[in-house]
């Protein structure tokens, strides 16, 4: 199991040919209090870079992009009633959706955890 990060502050945790996607601790902190999250429906086909989910704080709306191509397995059902879960546990219980991994080669351009944490420090 390996976790990768994107320059848009999504994380992607890969287990075999499935992946779990969420936003980083840095991203939730930058957004502030999250009041709404919309996750993609099961079965939706995503291309790399597609707008897959929406997250809104009191102040602003942001898109969550698909870091890789694949098909949505499920959205996180807990986020509808408790979007603040993303603030409390962004890289754990506050995950957004799970998807199949169509092309493992797409992971090559992503950062690993250590590289992401270092990069975020420079922002």
């Amino acid at each position: 199991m390996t976790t990768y990060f994107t320059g848009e502050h999504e994380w992607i945790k890969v287990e075999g040919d499935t992946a779990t996607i969420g936003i980083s601790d840095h991203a939730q902190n930058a957004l502030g209090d999250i009041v709404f999250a919309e996750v993609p429906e099961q079965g939706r086909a995503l291309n790399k870079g597609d707008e897959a989910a929406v997250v809104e704080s009191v102040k602003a709306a942001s898109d969550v992009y698909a870091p890789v191509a694949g098909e949505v397995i499920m959205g996180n059902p807990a986020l509808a009633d408790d979007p603040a879960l993303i603030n409390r546990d962004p890289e754990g219980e506050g995950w957004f959706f799970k998807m199949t991994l169509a092309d493992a080669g797409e992971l090559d351009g992503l950062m690993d955890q250590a590289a992401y944490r270092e990069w975020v420090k420079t922002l």
Partner: protein
Amino acid sequence: MAETDTADIQTLALDAWHRDHGARMVPFAGYHMPVQYDGVIAEHLWTRTEAGLFDVSHMGQLTFHGDNVDMALETLLPGDLQILKDGRLRYSMLLDESGGIIDDLMATRRRDHFYVVVNGATKNGDIEEFERRLPRGIVVDHWKEQALLALQGPRAAEVLEALAPGIAELSFMQGGQFEIAGTPAWISRSGYTGEDGYEISIAARAAASVADALLAHEAVKPIGLGARDSLRLEAGLPLYGHDLDRETTPVMADLQFAIGKRRRADGGFPGASRIVGEIDQGSVQRRIGLNVEGRQPVREGALILNGEGNEIGRITSGTFSPSLQRPIAMGYVASAQAEPGTALKLEQRGKIFDAVVTPMPFVPHRYHRKPAGA
């Protein structure tokens, strides 16, 4: 996140104070301003139950001196200023020649002159308008070395009375000269949250010591611009540049309360015939409040649709209400659709939302008004 050119952005007198207290700073109205400290929702709810300290020193603090200064200001503002007693303040608007709103403001009669607080983003343009359009002999001064703090919330009076004895005697929309933490201060019982509270004008060099003295009380926390926006939205108060602009008149903006009886009868302010006509016959459009179904905020720029799906207006402000735990919004619609209870649709990024026209304020005001006849 895009890089922003911050070279021309000014710093507040309390810039270091904000950073020391954990503020996240953002550019706003030409200044680095604190947008949040602990988090918008916590700060919002704190202000509704305790006392929130806001730095609003970006706003323009102006004085107007000259003979018959009240009558002179009435040539540009539609409010009844002649009736104002010493130390009383009034909400009003600077109007352009066709009755459009150049800015909204608070005007106070202070002995022989008027003290006026205008919005930060518009203050330089306002000063030009005043200087160009006021009668000769009126002197406009901009108090750039003056800071402005606001202490808002149900415990504001208790906190401030201990530092500036006598302020508890003020009623809503009344001010006076006091001393706080050894510093002369003009303090008025007013604000932008819907709560009881005060606005405190002090020399910028004393701002940190006054802020420290206020924050020493366990009921006080610093509050950022984020919560200031959600608090004023719940209170139904419009924000200039979003809910008000030169395309809107006081009647369209549902602010006709600010036009006194004498001014309606006598006119003598910019756009008077148009505005009095709108008071009598209604304006084409009107500012409304909306309760939005679901949990997702609908924000500025979203379309307002009627039952047939035709655009009848736009959202000008919207957020998730921390007090009501639901999305609320303000916008403009054709007056025929402005009645409370009217069901409308909103469209944002291709998605349709149900909404109902709702009387404002969304959260009741809790101003400290003296009983009638007192």
